């Protein structure tokens, strides 16, 4: 399972960077979206894929028995998803406003503030 995930994550990173290098601001935001998804999947995978073993402690014991899934990365991923959601919502509104003002879906037309 892990090699497959690694491939998928690598593909996502590559696609994200490719999209971010395009001139269109819409594609830029799609790139950011893919990038954050890739990072989330990566965290999810780093802890190891454990199947059907929730980290529950049986009654009367202090530790879970046998090998269980690590819950911490899942909590981390959940937080990261929420943050990415908020930030990308902002990014979408930003490109909409930018499009309204600049009247172009083109990063090359947004060079006024560059030096």
């Amino acid at each position, binding site marked *: 399972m892990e090699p497959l995930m690694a491939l998928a994550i690598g593909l996502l990173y590559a696609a994200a960077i490719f999209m971010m290098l395009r001139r269109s601001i819409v594609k830029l935001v799609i790139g950011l979206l893919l990038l954050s998804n890739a*990072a989330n999947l990566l*965290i999810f995978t780093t802890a190891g894929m454990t199947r059907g073993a929730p980290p529950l402690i049986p009654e009367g014991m202090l*530790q879970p028995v046998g090998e269980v899934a*690590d819950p911490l990365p899942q909590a981390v991923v959940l937080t*990261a998803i929420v*943050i990415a959601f908020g930030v990308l919502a902002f990014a979408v509104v*930003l490109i909409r*406003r930018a499009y309204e*003002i600049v009247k172009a879906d083109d*990063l090359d037309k947004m060079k006024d503030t560059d030096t």
Partner: protein
Amino acid sequence: MRPEVALPVLLPLLSGAISLLFWRSRPMQRFIAVAGNVALLLVSLWLFFAVLSDGYVTMQMGSWPAPFGITLIADMLSAVMILMTGIIGLAMGIYSLASTGRGHEKFGYYPLMHLLLAGVAGAFLTGDIFNLYVWFEVMLVASFALLILGGERAQMEGAIKYVTLNLLASVIFLTAIGLLYGTVGTLNMADIALRLNEAEHSGMVEVLAVMFMVAFGIKAAAFPLFFWLPASYHTPPVAVSALFAGLLTKVGVYSLFRVFTLMFDQTMGYLQDIMLWGAVLTMVTGVLGAAAQYEFRRILSFHIVSQIGYMILGLALYTPLAIAGGVFAIVHNIVVKTNLFLISGITHRLQGTYQLKKMGGLYRERPWLAVAFFISAFSLAGIPPLSGFFAKFVLVRAGLEAEAYVATGIALAVGFMTLYSMVKIWNEVFWKALPEDNHVPPSQTPVGDDGRLLKPSLWMMYLPVIVLAVMSLLIGVFAEPIMLVMNLIGDQLMTPTDYIEAVLGASASAESALITPGTQADLVGESMEETP
């Protein structure tokens, strides 16, 4: 239970929340902006003196023991940064009252300011690497919204670059956290430091170190990752520019200091040269970029980049004295750079433009403003006896002791180049006569019935400027006691075992001495199962 570690984070969050409740009441929001930031300053003083007497102040959130819960920890570096946050927060709170337009205030300027301060304070105090990411995002989201408040074309264009590159940095940071967790199985920074020291020196650790360096390098605007900064910092309302210039990039620098002295100290041999030349190139490109500019805030933005180089130079030399000098540079730069931006705001208010060519004659018109600018600008260039001189003096001495002669020489040369830019502003804005073709009306100015500027608003803009200029002077005059604190920081950062002990307790660090690298894998497995 040490409430003073949590309060610098909680207070701005609380002020922001109360401020949101009074969404429609402008006077109330303005009152909270000042009162909340006064409270923040008092709490940061409390924390500073607590850390000064105890060395480390820690708090485990929810009373979960150390590697499992989130730790808040203040060492001397955090305490000093929090103190600067408090000072700049209050200065901005007062300055904003006069400089911020009603349109901006109506759309939540003050709540966002509080939220930004909460994010900055959280990043300085947390002892958990993922929590650091979360505070970075809190800070970023607030800064995004502040950056585009007003919605002018330049702001949108600047914001797209700012948002994209900062999100890219965040994702690199997050990826590095994920890989780090996969390698060591913990997120607590002290615990990570322990386990990385126990681990065999593998290529993975170096890859992680480089990822952290790139992520924080983007946030800190180091060469060659700084291009978002001069493209965006001169676009928002001037109080926002000043707040960003004073605090935001410094959070990136702080994180570099924290991560590379605590967690990746064993990779420094490998990264030191890269960081050193990165720092040197940051200084040079920043100052050369500024030399070509004729817009007040753009010159200052490029100088932020250049000054970041000095701070990273302190880290790259990696001796206690150099670290002390680097932190001195941070403290000095926060005061001086914020002040220069604030002054640019006043000159804009008086003459209606940021273009140096169109300005002039302010020395005759406003001598005290000219004096405040003189102090700040020449402090930035490192003229004795101002604060910048001592920061540079310590760094140069550390550089000579470490035998990095070329880097030290370039650092001194950059000082002269800085002086050139500052003299350029001085000549154009204050010394030369106002050009005849200046028809730009003073903008956003509350004008009375007789057509003159309303006094109280300007008074509120002058007050922070004068206080910060005096602070720069005092840092220079009382350099010795400040240097004592800086040396304490240098010693603390170079002995990470104390930090680890403060977080995990004495037993953990004693235990670590007994553990051999071979047993490390079992240890990780064990702790992951124990994780509640």
